[in-house]
C-alpha cells in the first residue's frame, strides 16, 4: 500500500480513534451529601470521586476515562428525581449510581426504567429489588436481612419475646415493618413497638414503657443518626438489663463515640469492613476491605464507613460489568450486571441473578458487638 494511501486510511480512522479515546464513560450519581442523610452521601461521594480518580490513573475502563457527574439530592426524593432527569437527559450518562435513601431511589426508579439506564442503588429497603425491576440493582444489604440476622442471634441466646423501638425516618419505618413481618418466622414475638420522632432529645418515656412490658428479653432499635445514640444512653440510664440490638444504620465509630460507655455490649449486624483488621486471613473479603479501608482513610483522614463501602461496590460492579460486556451499551451492561457471580466487595460476596438484583445472602452480614469502644466479631 502506498504511503499516501496509508496516510489517508489513517486520517479516516483518526476521528474514529479520537472519538473512542475522547469519549469518556459517564457515570451519573445523585447522593445525599447534605441534609439529614449526609452521613450516607458524604462518604459515598468521597468514595466515588476517589475511585474514579484511581481508575482513570490506571488507564480507565475499556481504554476510556471515567467521568463522574455527581449531584447532591440532600435526602429529598423530589430533588433526586430532578437530578436523575438531568443526568439522563442533559448529561447523558451511561449508568446511574446513587439514591442514598430509599425515598430518593424509588423516585428515580421509574425514570431509569423508562429510559433504560442501568441503576445501582445505594439504599437499604428491600422494596428496591423486590419485586425485581429490570434496570435496578442495589449493593447494600436489605433491611429485612438485618432483621433476620438479629433474630437469628436472638434465638441463639434463647430470646423468644422482644421489643422494637424505631424512629420516624424512612429507614426506621421500613426496617420496623420488615421486622414485624419476619419475626414470627424466626420464632420471635414482638411484645412492644415504640417510636420516637425526628430531632427528639429524650426517649426515656418510650423505654420506660418497654421496661414495664412483661417478658421482654431483648430490644431492637431500628434507626440511624443521633436517635439510636440517645436511645442507648437512655437505655443504660433506666438500667434496662436485657440485651440491646442496633441496626446496620449505626454501624459506624460515630455511634460508638456518641453513645460512649452505654454502647458496651450492644450488638448489631454489619459489613465485614468494620472489622477489617481482625478478620482471619482466610476470609474471602479480607483483601478487598483492608485495601478500601487503607485507601479511604489515608486520603480523607476519617474513619471508613460501610456506606462508602456500598458506593465502592456499586462503582466496581459497574466497571466489572462494563469490562465483561466489552462495551458501555446500556443493555449489555445490564445483562452483565445481572450475570455477576462471585464478586467480592466490601458488603460481601455478590451473586446476582435475574431474580436477585442484590446478590448478598445472610452470611454477608457479620454480627458485631461493642467491647471497650471497639467492634468485635461475634462467632
Amino acid at each position, binding site marked *: 500500500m502506498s504511503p499516501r494511501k496509508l496516510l489517508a486510511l489513517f486520517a479516516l480512522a483518526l476521528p474514529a480513534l479520537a472519538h473512542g479515546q475522547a469519549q469518556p464513560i459517564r457515570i451519573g450519581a445523585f447522593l445525599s451529601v447534605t441534609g439529614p442523610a449526609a452521613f450516607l452521601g458524604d462518604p459515598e461521594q468521597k468514595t466515588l470521586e476517589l475511585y474514579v480518580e484511581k481508575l482513570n490513573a490506571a488507564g480507565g475502563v475499556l481504554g476510556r476515562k471515567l467521568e463522574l457527574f455527581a449531584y447532591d439530592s440532600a435526602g429529598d426524593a423530589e430533588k433526586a428525581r430532578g437530578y436523575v432527569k438531568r443526568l439522563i437527559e442533559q448529561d447523558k450518562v451511561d449508568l446511574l449510581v446513587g439514591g442514598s435513601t430509599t425515598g430518593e431511589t424509588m423516585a428515580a426508579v421509574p425514570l431509569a426504567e423508562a429510559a433504560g439506564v442501568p441503576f445501582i442503588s445505594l439504599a437499604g429497603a428491600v422494596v428496591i429489588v423486590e419485586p425485581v425491576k429490570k434496570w435496578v440493582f442495589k449493593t447494600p444489604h436489605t433491611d429485612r436481612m438485618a432483621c433476620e440476622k438479629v433474630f437469628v442471634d436472638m434465638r441463639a441466646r434463647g430470646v423468644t419475646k422482644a421489643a422494637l423501638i424505631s424512629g420516624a425516618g424512612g429507614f426506621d419505618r421500613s426496617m420496623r415493618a420488615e421486622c414485624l413481618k419476619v419475626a414470627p418466622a424466626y420464632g420471635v414475638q414482638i411484645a412492644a413497638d415504640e417510636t420516637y420522632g425526628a430531632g427528639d*432529645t429524650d426517649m426515656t418515656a418510650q423505654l420506660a414503657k418497654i421496661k414495664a412490658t412483661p417478658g421482654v428479653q431483648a430490644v431492637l432499635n431500628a434507626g440511624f443518626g443521633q436517635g439510636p445514640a440517645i436511645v442507648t444512653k437512655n437505655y443504660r440510664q433506666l438500667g434496662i438489663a436485657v440485651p440491646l440490638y442496633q441496626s446496620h444504620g449505626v454501624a459506624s465509630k460515630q455511634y460508638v463515640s456518641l453513645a460512649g460507655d452505654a454502647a458496651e455490649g450492644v450488638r448489631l449486624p454489619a459489613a465485614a469492613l468494620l472489622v477489617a483488621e481482625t478478620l482471619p486471613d482466610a476470609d474471602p473479603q479480607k483483601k478487598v476491605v483492608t485495601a478500601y479501608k487503607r485507601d479511604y482513610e489515608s486520603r480523607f483522614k476519617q474513619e471508613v464507613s460501610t456506606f462508602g463501602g456500598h458506593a465502592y461496590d456499586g462503582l466496581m460492579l459497574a466497571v466489572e460489568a462494563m469490562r465483561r460486556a466489552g462495551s458501555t451499551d446500556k443493555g449489555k451492561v445490564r445483562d452483565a450486571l445481572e450475570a455477576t457471580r462471585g464478586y467480592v466487595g466490601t458488603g460481601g460476596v455478590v451473586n446476582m441473578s435475574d431474580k436477585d438484583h442484590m446478590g448478598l445472602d445472610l452470611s454477608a452480614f457479620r454480627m458485631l458487638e461493642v467491647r471497650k469502644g471497639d467492634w468485635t466479631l461475634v462467632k
Partner: protein
Amino acid sequence: MIEQYLLSGITTGAIYALVALGFALIYNASHVINFAQGEFVMIGGMASAAFFEAGLPLPAAILLSIAGATLVGVLLDKLAVEPARDAPVVTLIIITIGASILLRGLATLVWDKKIHRVPAFSGEAPIALGTATLLPQVLWVLGVSAAAVALLTWFFRRTLTGKAILAVSHNRLAARLMGISVRRVLAVSFGLSAALGALAGVLVSPIAFTSWDVGVMLGLKGFAAAILGGLGSSAGAVAGGLALGLIEALGAGYLSSAYKDVFAFLIIVAALVFLPNGLLGRGATERV
C-alpha cells in the same frame, strides 16, 4: 412509670422553654418571628463541641460559644433586620428564614455534617428519684433555665436597658419620643435572644448531641411553645415550653409514641382556639 414520664417531659420542656424565651424576646421588641432562632441553639452546641474538641476546657468553650452566638445575633439584626426595618412583617419573617438557611449552610462549611457530643457537665451517673432516674445533666438544664428566667425578670424590671426594651415593645413611637434608641434595643434583644438560644444548645448537647441541622426541630417546637404560652411574656414562654414537653412525654407514655407530636399540636391548636392569646398571654403585650 408516671414519674419517668414527668421527668422526661420536664427535661425536654426546659429546653423548649429556653428557645421559646428567645422567640418571645425578639417578637416583643420587633414583632418579628425570628425563624433563625433554632440556629442559635445549633451554634451554641456546635461551637462548644468544636472548641472543646480543639482542646479548650469545657467552661471556656461554653462561654466562647455563647459569646459567638450573641455576636451572630447582633450581626443578624444589624445586617438583615435593621436595613429592612420599614418592610412589612412578613418580609422580615422571610429574611429570618433566609438567615436560617444561610446559617445552616455556613455551619456545614465552618464545621461539618457529623454529629458531635459534648461531655456532660458533671458526669453521666444516673440519679434515682423514686422509681425514676434522672441524668445529672438534666438538673443543670432545669437549674440554669430557672436562673436564666430569674435573671431576665430582674433585667426587665430593674435595669434601664431592660425597661427600654419593655417600652419599645409596648409602644415604639412613644419610646422613641422618650429618647430610647430603638436600634440599640433591637440589637440588645437579638443578642440576648441568641445568647438564650445558644445556652439551650449548650445545655442540651450532652444529652441529645448536636449537629448542623439540630436547630430545625428545636426551633419549631420552641416556636410552638412560645405561641402556646403567649408571646407576650417570659412566664408564658416558660409555661408553654414545659407544657409542650409534658404533653409530648405523657402522650408517648400513655397514648401512642408514634403520634405524640400529633397530640401535642392538636392540643396546641385547640388551646389557641379557646385561648387565642395563649396560656398566659393577655391581649396587648404586657411584659416580656
